[in-house]
């Protein structure tokens, strides 16, 4: 920011660009993102109360204890879904795309991901889906996605 491009007068409106490079550390969640590159989808099991998290979490939100990494089943069911025809600016080029919450057998909470389907297929609650992994890591949560089983 700092120098304006004139957009209109009366009132005077200028356009400013604001830009930042963020160094985003995955910190204690790093193992999850690293292991996606090895085709592993990690969840967490609480060492103390036994709760099994479908989304990686290094500490248990129920008892505060440290969790241990566990492999999630790669097959699950659609718990809910939505197909997006609009989005935030960053994902404008991706629409339409489908987001799902996936439930895994024996796991106590869900995992959010993208669902890719063949043309004409429609997502449905309860449908079986299976995890796929990107060959070239983007180092984002998009390194895993789901397809119908």
């Amino acid at each position, binding site marked *: 920011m700092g120098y304006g491009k004139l957009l209109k007068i009366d*009132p005077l409106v200028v356009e400013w660009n604001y830009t930042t490079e963020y160094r985003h550390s995955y910190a204690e969640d790093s193992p999850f993102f690293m292991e996606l590159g090895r085709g592993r989808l990690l969840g967490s099991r609480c060492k103390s109360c036994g709760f099994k998290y479908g989304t990686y979490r290094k500490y248990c939100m129920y008892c505060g204890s440290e969790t241990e990494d566990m492999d999630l089943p790669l097959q699950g069911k659609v718990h809910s879904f939505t197909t997006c025809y609009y*989005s*935030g600016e960053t994902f404008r080029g991706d629409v339409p795309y489908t987001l799902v919450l996936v439930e895994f057998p024996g796991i106590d909470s*869900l995992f959010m991901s993208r669902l890719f389907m063949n043309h004409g297929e429609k997502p449905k609650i309860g449908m079986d889906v299976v995890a796929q992994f990107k060959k070239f890591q983007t180092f984002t949560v998009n390194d895993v996605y789901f397809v119908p089983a």
Partner: protein
Amino acid sequence: MIAGGMTHFKKINFNDDFRLNVKHSLDYALKDSGMKIGDIEGSVSAYFSDHLQGQLIAGAMSNDFIGLAGKPSKRIEGGGATGGLAFQTAYEEIASGTMDTCLAYGFENMSHVGTWRGNDIIALGSDASFDYPLGGFYTAYYALMATRHMYEFGTTEKQMAMVSVKNHGNAMYNPYAQAPMDITVDDVLKSPVVSSPIKMLDICLMSDGAACAILASEEVAKSYSGKPVLIKSIGSSSDTMRLADRPFGTVPLLPNENPEMYRNLKYPGVHSFRAGRLAAKMAYRKAGISNPQKEIDFAELYDAYTSAEIQAYEDMGFCQYGQGGKFIEDGRSMLDGDIPVNMEGGLQASGHAIGATGIMQAVYAFWQLQGTVHKHLGSNRLQVKNPHMGIIHSHAGTGAYEAVTVMEAV
């Protein structure tokens, strides 16, 4: 509460900046109560994000603009619940003995950035590691909840559309509203799908605007207003930021409910807002409300999405979980229903200038309980008949924060 004010909410208002919007709303409230700015002992400001304003510490800037330099002030933020939480904080400023009069004001100027960019910025208010990079944005998150609500309870897109028709229609009689519209269920169903099942006309607006409320201790309130309204109780709660983390447990019951009602319901999952229910439960307990369906005369509910209003009917206990769709279908939340909801248009049609919204709700509820709707909105058309008790409700981040405040005519 002794006075309130708000600006006309607009899609774009380049003529007045956020500070001037606050001042306009304040000047109205001061005039209405006969108070002077010097009578205000301090303030609580509310706005959602530095990213939307392009200005940090914007609370302090509006504070001196309106003439409160030299008095205590602080800013509250809690996503979409920002205004609702700020209003409660102003209540606590007084209840804790810190001040005898406190101004709560909120604002947002969302026109600084384009709509897609705005979506992106608001989406950064979800988990930036796990959710946002998927292309997550708030309409999608609420859509995931709506899809599951439809699955669990049989709620329909048509019922959702009815909420939109109601709120846009109500706004026809509200001169402050951004988007009054005389529309049909079909219009809503045919509007472009944003994130299935949520369509364009199921979604609230992005607005430029401000609202304010002047609160005072009971004693001081009497000296400024012949018709103050009592803030009977406040309740708030929180939930996990990520939808995926929501538990599958049991329903926190209201006094008029029993466990038998929900024997097979895994709660909240992603179909309901646990924080909304907990906030309501706390507020009702403190207000001594044992049956909200009978004791509450109207509500300003957080209808960022039409589905969210239906979910809120249930969270607030206006009907049993699962009956929210039927609640609108039966017309119970209509202006002439037994619990009118969003009589002035809600976020859907009045507007949603995030930090202002919760306070805008408080002002509408205040006017309703004072019985002064005709004075402020130009006609009695939206006035609920002799209301005794009303609630205002707002939330953030698919219910990561929720605030419920009970207000009572005295």
